[in-house]
């Protein structure tokens, strides 16, 4: 019971994830998924193209996420 309460408290804390974190995590996961898809697929096939698009999208998410926090 204490463990469940502790997990619930932890999840409550994570509910308000900042926008930059959502962008970075989403972008990073998309990048990795895209790279795996592109690597495991035949060159120029549809899955390969999806992988490439995912990779670029993920890269963009990472870049926008990091840039959004900079005030330089």
């Amino acid at each position, binding site marked *: 019971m204490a463990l469940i309460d*502790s*997990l619930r408290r*932890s*999840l409550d*804390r*994570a509910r*308000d*994830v*900042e926008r*930059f*974190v959502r962008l*970075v*995590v989403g*972008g*990073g*996961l998309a*990048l*990795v998924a895209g*790279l*795996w898809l592109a*690597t*495991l697929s035949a060159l120029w096939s549809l899955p390969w193209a999806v992988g490439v698009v995912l990779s670029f999208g*993920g890269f963009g998410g*990472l*870049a926008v*996420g*990091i840039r959004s*926090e*900079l*005030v*330089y």
Partner: protein
Amino acid sequence: MLPSGADCVLVRFVFQRGLAVIYLFAFLVAVRQFCPLAGEDGLLPLSEYAENASFRERPSLFYVYPDDRIVGLTAWVGVALSLVALFAGPYWLPAPYALPASMLLWLALWGLYQSFVNAGRVFYGYGWESMLLETGFLAVFLGAGASNPPVVVIWLLKWLLFRNMFGAGLIKIRGDDCWRDLTCMDHHYETQPMPNPVSWFAHHLPERFHRVEVLGNHVVELAVPFLYFAPQPYATAAGVATIGFQAWLVFTGNFSWLNALTIVQAVATFSDGVLTAVAPVAAPAAVSPPLALTVLAVLVAVLVVAMSVRPVVNMLSPTQVMNTSFDPLNLVNTYGAFGSITRDRYQLVIEGTDAENPAEDDWTAYDCKGQPVRTDERPSQWAPYHLRLDWQLWFAAMRPRPGRRQRWLLELLEALLEGDEGARSLMGSDPFPDGPEWVRVLRYRYRFTTPEERAETGDWWERERVGTYVAPVSLADLQGGLGRRTVVR
């Protein structure tokens, strides 16, 4: 192309040797420092831990045997086992014995070091202690000899490296404006806990370089870690970027074995194909790991995934806390520190005198091993060795007066007044072999000299006194009338 343990035999070998070196340093530090810091007559006596702590919360051999002889024996056994691990002891055994010997060896190292971390209290409260334990725990299940490592353990090491780096990246963006306006490195080299011989030069690099450094930090800590899980050669590229980043930190500062341990973890991002391409070695032919080890590794993976919920939630939370363990065995932890960068370097200088009624000129400063005291002394290189007292002095100097967490400082002053050998061994120089009549602690603000000032004076530091941290006290004051509570607020 899919992950396979067959491509990680050399990776495992290199990783294990690197981890053994870190363990060796950690146990040597325990040999040299644990007793004067946290032993029977240490600054924080071992009996306090044994009497006040709960074994279930902080398990340690020293809970059962709070004895300096056991501490010393444990530390030396740790040194010996680290050397066995470094020279690949289990690999020299006949095939059937290599795997169990390897598991027992790494388990023993993990168990012994656990005892130091859990009994060391404030002197062992650093993120790299729990990180070493978590890394060491995973090493138990890597196997040895003629069988491949279970690939799932390699991925658990990547997961650990990811939490290490990504947690550090997040806490920085959240922790201090200077990480967002890219100015943190203007201060870092000067105000870091323990500068090294290169820090002065790094501090004086052009401003634009410092901006690029901070931006590079964000890329390496927030974006690159995802690539640890990508296929080769992207994972290797991420590992190389991480190692390069950590190598720069090693080159420009003393962060104990934090950076070296991260470099060791980053080896897990490589493949044997990469290692054989850059080094004149051939990957040995190996067979699949025994079924029992594979099953055990999968069970460990399930455990780690389940225990990762809280560290992950902490990382994602806007109120992220720094380096924290969520279980008594430090199995799966959250990492990240240096979210805020101090702009001024405060420094405590301990002074003593034999004069009965000392004037200002009668005081002589004790040198520290790693913290700057003399302004003409070039900062020293210590990492990956860890100077635990010096690090605590750096933390203590952030306050204008000692607080409850700094009660060890008064124990240190008392031990210096008594001429205690253990306490003196923690200091850099020993101007009073038999103990002075009085000691005091002054608080200074230190800054690096400019290149012009250094050319003129030869000094590395410029300092100004900003206060008295502990007013002059004698042995009688500390043992009787004055009382510690008067000094510690």
